[in-house]
């Protein structure tokens, strides 16, 4: 075990304070931490790309007869890194056939970046709905379950959330989909699956696809189905898009809360035993005030850290829901690429995902430090 990182040669030894006469640092602790983390992100992305290169390109290079379905990256590592950082993510010729020869020039292969531009907005729209719902559910439920000393509250909450975390989300999605099907069909004359827009038969029954929808799912001008429906004054389409987004977002939120809860509950439990809470309780402050005025504020930074920690899990949940509801989003694209054996879009997809996760984790960490400046970076 190396110990070269410590000034005095042993792990965990306290760092020496700065000398009294040393100049004051230009950046504050938080700013220095933010800059360090920001500078680290490109290095982490390169490391992720190195792993992908090693597991995708090198094996195919070593194989004499690779399966036809496995498309190798077919470029050197440095070239791959340069291309990805400069937005050159390769092309996908097969999409022309999948979309009936769509695109500005069917003879030209379509860049992956164009395809991503069609698939990413529905995912963002779903996340914009799902995250607030998850927060509204997770915060009070975790706080209450962690706070309560009664086994009648905590034990069922633990059991339900553990079961929820173990249920594969595609099963939950399919159950919800089937439970809603007939009622939804009767009310909206539409099916609850097939993306965030009405299904194709709904459009055929209402005069065909409007000009602002391409390839039966990509909307214009923004790409966000709900926003574009509102911009184009398609009020019924907007209402259906809103409903579908809400249904999918609820499934995402419930499944994610189950994952979030287990971490958050133990945090709420530890806050319950803090000295200032015990002291306040001994002075006669009501449990309700202690919970919602003091503990709720105290757990916020830790809850944010748990949120940053579980972002990849959140993405996994959302991707599976997108697939279950046949929503043409980021997750659907990843599932289709993986199961179809088309690995060429995976590298840019994972690259984009890693950027989102790393930047989001940094933002959440900074917010947590702002709320609770006692951590390492805040010193």
């Amino acid at each position, binding site marked *: 075990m190396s110990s*070269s990182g410590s000034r005095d040669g*042993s792990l965990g030894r306290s760092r020496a304070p700065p000398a009294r006469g040393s100049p004051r640092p230009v950046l504050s602790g938080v700013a220095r931490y933010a800059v360090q983390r920001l500078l680290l992100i490109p290095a*982490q992305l390169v490391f*992720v790309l190195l792993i992908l290169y090693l597991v995708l390109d090198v094996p195919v290079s070593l194989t004499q007869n690779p399966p036809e379905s496995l498309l190798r990256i077919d470029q050197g590592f440095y070239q791959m890194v340069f291309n990805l950082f400069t937005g050159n993510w390769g092309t996908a010729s097969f999409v022309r056939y999948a979309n009936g020869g769509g695109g500005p020039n069917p003879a030209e292969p379509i860049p992956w970046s164009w395809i991503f531009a069609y698939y990413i907005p529905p995912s963002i729209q779903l996340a914009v709905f799902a995250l607030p719902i998850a927060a509204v559910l997770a915060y009070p439920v975790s706080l209450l379950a962690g706070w309560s000393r009664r086994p009648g509250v905590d034990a069922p909450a633990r059991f339900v959330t553990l*079961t929820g975390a173990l249920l594969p989300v595609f099963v939950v999605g399919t159950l919800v989909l089937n439970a809603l*099907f007939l009622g939804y069909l009767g009310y909206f004359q539409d099916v609850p699956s097939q993306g965030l827009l009405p299904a194709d038969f709904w459009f055929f029954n209402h005069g065909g696809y409007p000009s602002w929808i391409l390839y039966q799912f990509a909307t214009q001008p923004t790409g966000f189905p709900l926003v574009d429906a509102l911009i184009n004054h398609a009020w019924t389409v907007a209402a259906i898009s809103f409903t579908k987004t809400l249904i999918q977002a609820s499934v995402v939120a419930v499944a994610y809360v189950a994952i979030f809860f287990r*971490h958050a509950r133990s945090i709420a439990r530890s806050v319950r035993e803090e000295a200032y809470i015990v002291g306040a309780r001994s002075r006669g402050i009501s449990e309700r005030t202690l919970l919602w005025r003091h503990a709720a504020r105290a757990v916020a930074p830790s809850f944010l850290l748990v949120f940053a920690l579980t972002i990849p899990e959140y993405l996994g949940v959302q991707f599976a829901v997108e697939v279950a509801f046949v929503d043409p989003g980021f997750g659907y694209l990843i*599932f289709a690429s993986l199961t179809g054996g088309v690995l060429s879009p995976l590298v840019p997809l994972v690259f984009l995902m*890693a950027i989102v996760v790393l930047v989001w*984790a940094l933002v959440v960490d900074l917010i947590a430090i702002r709320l609770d400046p006692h951590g390492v970076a805040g010193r």
Partner: protein
Amino acid sequence: MTEGTAPRPAEPPSALPRPSVRERWARRPPGLSFLVGVGMLAVYLVAALSALVVFRSSLDQLPSTVAWVPLENPIGPSAVHPFGVMAGFGTDLFRAVWQATPWDLGIVAGILGIDVFLGFFLGAIAGLDEGGLVDALITFVGDSLGSIPTFVLAVVVFAGLLTVAPQTVGLPVFVAVFGIILWPTMARTVRERARIIAHQPYVEGARASGASSLRILVRHVMPNSLGPVLAQIPLDVAPVFFVLSAFPWYYNCQLPGGPHVPVPPGHLAPPPTPYLVPVLPYFSPLPSNAFPEWGFLLGFGTCEGFSFPGGFNYWWMYLFPLLAIVGLGVAIGLVCDGIERWRHFDR
């Protein structure tokens, strides 16, 4: 003490002697939920061991009865078939779930073993060396790997390995890959606890008395950082079965005629026959499409069980594999929670 041997140094006086295991057991017996969890795990173990004895040579192959394969009028739960029949496989579901038990217990035990070993050890080292080079290295690698959803990374890595040696890469390699991929989450949660422990007065005291870093790690930091490990273990069961079930589900449902998308009345209702034979995705770690495994049964059963829109006609096809998976996860969760509660018996 026999005459002639060197006298042992006197034990340092301690204000609160550490209670023995027997004392802890006597002062706070394990709760009901812990006993329920142990009981459930015992049932799984008995099922696994009995499957090893009963099925012996045919343990890795589900028998198929041709008459049970078609989806029309599938056989539901009855006295003869307690869990019903899985159409497509053409097999009795009770037998399939039972036969899969030793395989799935082995998969889960292997993955969690690697995950806990790496995550616990690396997380504790990182927490003890907070701000140092070792911490920076472990955090860098862990955060980088952790930025990719587990199921994507697992499938990509396994697909790459499969390309190199398709004949030799199988279930054991999948278990190893998955265990290695899961460690960052475990390590990060352990690190958070370990860095708090590392600043506790008793650790500072041990350090001042000349204890080595390894001793502090093993005697003080790791035992007191066990809480996050126990909280994380049940959660790490979920991604294992997600990968094993989600891709077969998607793959089989996407085949021509798959019932994945509920179809409104009068619109594009394809015959459900072409997908009846279960198919594995090319990167599946399972050796054949007749291999007994809960995740595969669940994925395929979900696809078949929802063949008709708005109905839950073939509920048994996904319910029993699902119960087997959730039951195992809940049992592990109850046992872990019970151990954690018992460790802090004085709170």
